[in-house]
């Protein structure tokens, strides 16, 4: 089956030198979340160095009936870096979903381009000898399964299979997206913190309408441009290179973390805020975060919000700083990058708008996303 569409052109090959660009790109798209892409990038480098090959095909290049299985890693990614994968988890999850649905996987697609899930499906594609699709189900970093583009487009995301490192495999046959999210949250603490996820195969012809296309190649391009800026990137050039807007250049004056509001007796995601004092302006940029940076207020006024990507970059290296590692005293650039148009369509915006995270503010987006808009 692979050979059937392997002959088609405009395929993206990820070679060893591209891994750094991919890693940087997905880390920025994680919007401060999405997990540590470094471990995943190391795994991918190892496989490429061993002569394995990963081909990322445009969705349009697949036959409409090709079955694409969305895969990824869910759970606490801090644990992922400590409790390393055995390499069989994604395969186990894909196996389980193939057995449950009785359909063979022809290709894999990432559930989330932002963070480690922008890289892990490529590792799995190497391991399983399957192709990867140049698309994802998020377009950025997302915290909840019921926010995936499949759910936002009205498709079920069950059946789904979860496979954790010590061998447990869980398949949820039916249920609403919120049910799957709840199941995963219940399963994960007992499973050791993280698990591989595979969703039921989606025919390629149907996937186009319910995913963010071209996101892997976009991440690589974004990463390349960022790396090309070198150390101590100039804010204007950074904005021009990303098509985004620099919200602040300054020093982290404060990081506050607190428990989030719980629901149904279970605590919610932790909350936090980061305050950056602008150099030369003394403007205060406050970022509200949950798993990702979600909202930016400049001197009390909302200036940027989810679903746009808000990234905090190390001012010296240009490397993204995740929400769980940002510390007082860091010299940072805060960057806003426009979200994929998939999410700004009516009916979908609410899925990722601030109010979906309990933040009572209207979305503040870079719309229309003009290239190189000045800050």
């Amino acid at each position, binding site marked *: 089956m692979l050979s059937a569409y392997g002959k088609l052109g405009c395929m993206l090959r990820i070679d060893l030198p591209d891994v750094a660009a991919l890693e940087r790109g997905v880390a920025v798209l*994680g919007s401060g979340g999405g997990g540590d892409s470094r471990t995943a990038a190391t795994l991918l480098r190892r496989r490429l160095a061993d002569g394995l090959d990963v081909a990322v095909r445009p969705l349009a290049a697949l036959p409409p009936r090709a079955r694409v299985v969305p895969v990824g890693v869910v759970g606490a990614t801090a644990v992922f870096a400590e409790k390393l994968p055995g390499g069989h988890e994604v395969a186990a999850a894909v196996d389980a979903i193939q057995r449950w649905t009785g359909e063979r996987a022809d290709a894999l697609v990432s559930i989330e381009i932002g963070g480690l899930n922008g890289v892990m499906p490529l590792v799995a594609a190497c391991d399983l000898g399957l192709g990867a699709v140049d698309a994802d189900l998020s377009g950025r970093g997302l915290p909840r399964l019921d926010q995936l583009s499949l759910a936002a487009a009205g498709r079920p995301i069950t059946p789904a299979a979860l496979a954790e490192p010590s061998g447990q495999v869980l398949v949820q046959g039916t249920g609403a997206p919120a049910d799957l999210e709840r199941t995963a949250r219940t399963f994960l603490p007992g499973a050791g913190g993280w698990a591989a996820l595979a969703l039921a195969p989606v025919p390629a012809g149907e996937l186009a309408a319910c995913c963010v296309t071209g996101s892997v190649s976009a991440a690589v391009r974004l990463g390349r441009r960022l790396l090309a800026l070198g150390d101590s990137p100039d804010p204007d050039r950074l904005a021009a290179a990303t098509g985004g807007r620099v919200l602040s250049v300054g020093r982290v004056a404060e990081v506050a*973390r607190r428990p*989030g509001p719980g629901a149904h007796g279970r605590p919610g995601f932790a909350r936090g805020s980061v305050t950056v004092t602008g150099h030369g302006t003394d403007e205060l940029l*406050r970022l509200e975060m949950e798993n990702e940076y979600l909202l930016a207020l400049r001197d009390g006024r909302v200036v940027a919000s989810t679903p746009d990507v808000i990234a905090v970059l190390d001012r010296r290296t240009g490397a993204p700083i995740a929400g*769980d590692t940002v510390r007082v005293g860091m010299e940072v650039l805060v960057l806003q990058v426009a979200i994929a148009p998939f999410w700004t369509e009516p009916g979908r915006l609410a899925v990722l708008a601030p109010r979906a995270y309990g933040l009572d503010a209207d979305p503040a987006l870079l719309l229309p996303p003009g290239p190189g808009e000045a800050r």
Partner: protein
Amino acid sequence: MLGGEGMSSVRRLLALPEWSGAVRVLAGAAGLDAPVRAVRPVADPGAGDPVAAGELIVVTGPPQPADWRLDALLRRVADAGGAGVLVPFGPPAGSGAPVASAPEPGSGAVAGSGMTAGSGAVMGSGVVAGSGAARATVLLAERLGLPLLGAAGGDPLNLVVTARLLLAEPEIDRARLVLAAHRAFDDRACAPEDVMRRLGDLLGVPVALLDDRGQPLAGRLAEPGAVRVDEFVPQRVALADGVLLAHPAMLPYPARPTFWLVAELRGTAAARAEIVPPALSVAAVAVQRWLLAHRLELERDARARTALLGDLLRLDGEPSAQLRRRVADAGWQLGGWHVGLRIGAVSTLDLVPRTAEISRVLRAEGVEAVVVEHGEGWTGWTSFAQEPTPARVRALAGRLRAAHRKLRGAIADHMGVGRPHPWPEGLAGTVAEATDAARLAATRPEAGYFLQVDQLGMAQLLLEWTRTDTFEPAARALLAPLRDQPGDLVRTLSAYLDAESSIAETAAVLGVHRNTVAARIDRVERLLGVDLGHRDERLALHLACRTVTLPGR
């Protein structure tokens, strides 16, 4: 009235007993002295109600840790020119656990189990110790210069209530004072001095009554000169340690203050500067009422006197019993000998209020005279029981001249004095002489604008008068229409006037037929446009004729 409505400051609110123990300034101390006009509770900092200028927003709902919506609220309040934000901290009502302290057990692990990004378990930092406000919020309040207050324990609504009572206090105080002022200055008209005494009792501060030039009439002030008496509006003058409040008491005409009511508020009393002006205004109305009543009385008297004078001057023969009664009521004396007075007022002067001043000046010079507003000046007379000796008349003239010097400029312009004439027919005569003399005096700066028709008679007066360089051209101009006319009109007119307007006598003097004289006089009247029956015109023409026909001129 509205300018000072509820003016207070956050600093003053903090001094309230209910606030002082419970509320702390977390940030933005720079704005503590900004005015607070209103205090409004909001249950939820995210509520998007518009904020008004001068408003202090009190968040009453239980605080949420590090709530970013507080930042947005600070911004909205700052943008609207609000006075500040108060947030509760400490245990919210109905909960024993302090907010924003240590994380709940296990929350770190679960909270970190986001789909991808695990947040760390580091909690509790970034909250200012002992307050519910995040350090980010504190930094922002400091940056905006907007007071951020923290209330420990208790119900913030209590703070709202006490603050609102304080804000309403000046209004209540003012209302009380105005009511008390209305009671004090009831319908009875009382003299300005009494009004000031009661006002001083009412306000408990030094008050004074100033005249239209700012000189004190009653009361005592350290700096009465600070009032700008040329600006006829209520004034507020800053003093070194207080404020001077001034309110004019005006009559509709002339529209300039007759009096100024001034209150001096020093030291702690200066805080009542917003409260006192309405009471001052009520007192000014009382003074104004008195002025109006007084003026009405003066006017009524003046009219009666003027009418009475007119009746006396027109009198031929003995006055009726009724007229004598009116004269007696006016306090005038008719018997004996009279010397008439005529005082011309400076232009556009309001006569009635000055009559008393003229009487006062005359009395000061030892002259008891009746003075009545009459035309554009005053007419009057002084009486002697017996025919006065020339020495007494000269002494009288000297005293009148001295009085005129005092009056001249501000009130009087010129003065004429007649000869002594006996009652009754002589009163009109001496007044007429005085009137003529006054008319001449108006053109005689060298005589100090003062002329007396003395025993030497009119002729000398006239001759003296016609020697002026100003009169001769005027006389010639006056008679110019008669020149180059057929018939010797100037000579005919001169003879006619010399003959006391007798046609027959004139005809005899000129040696022409009486019809000729009548026709000529008729032409003279038409050419000159005069009525020779009018004594003023007759006098002027007579003098003019004398001037142009005088030998040697």
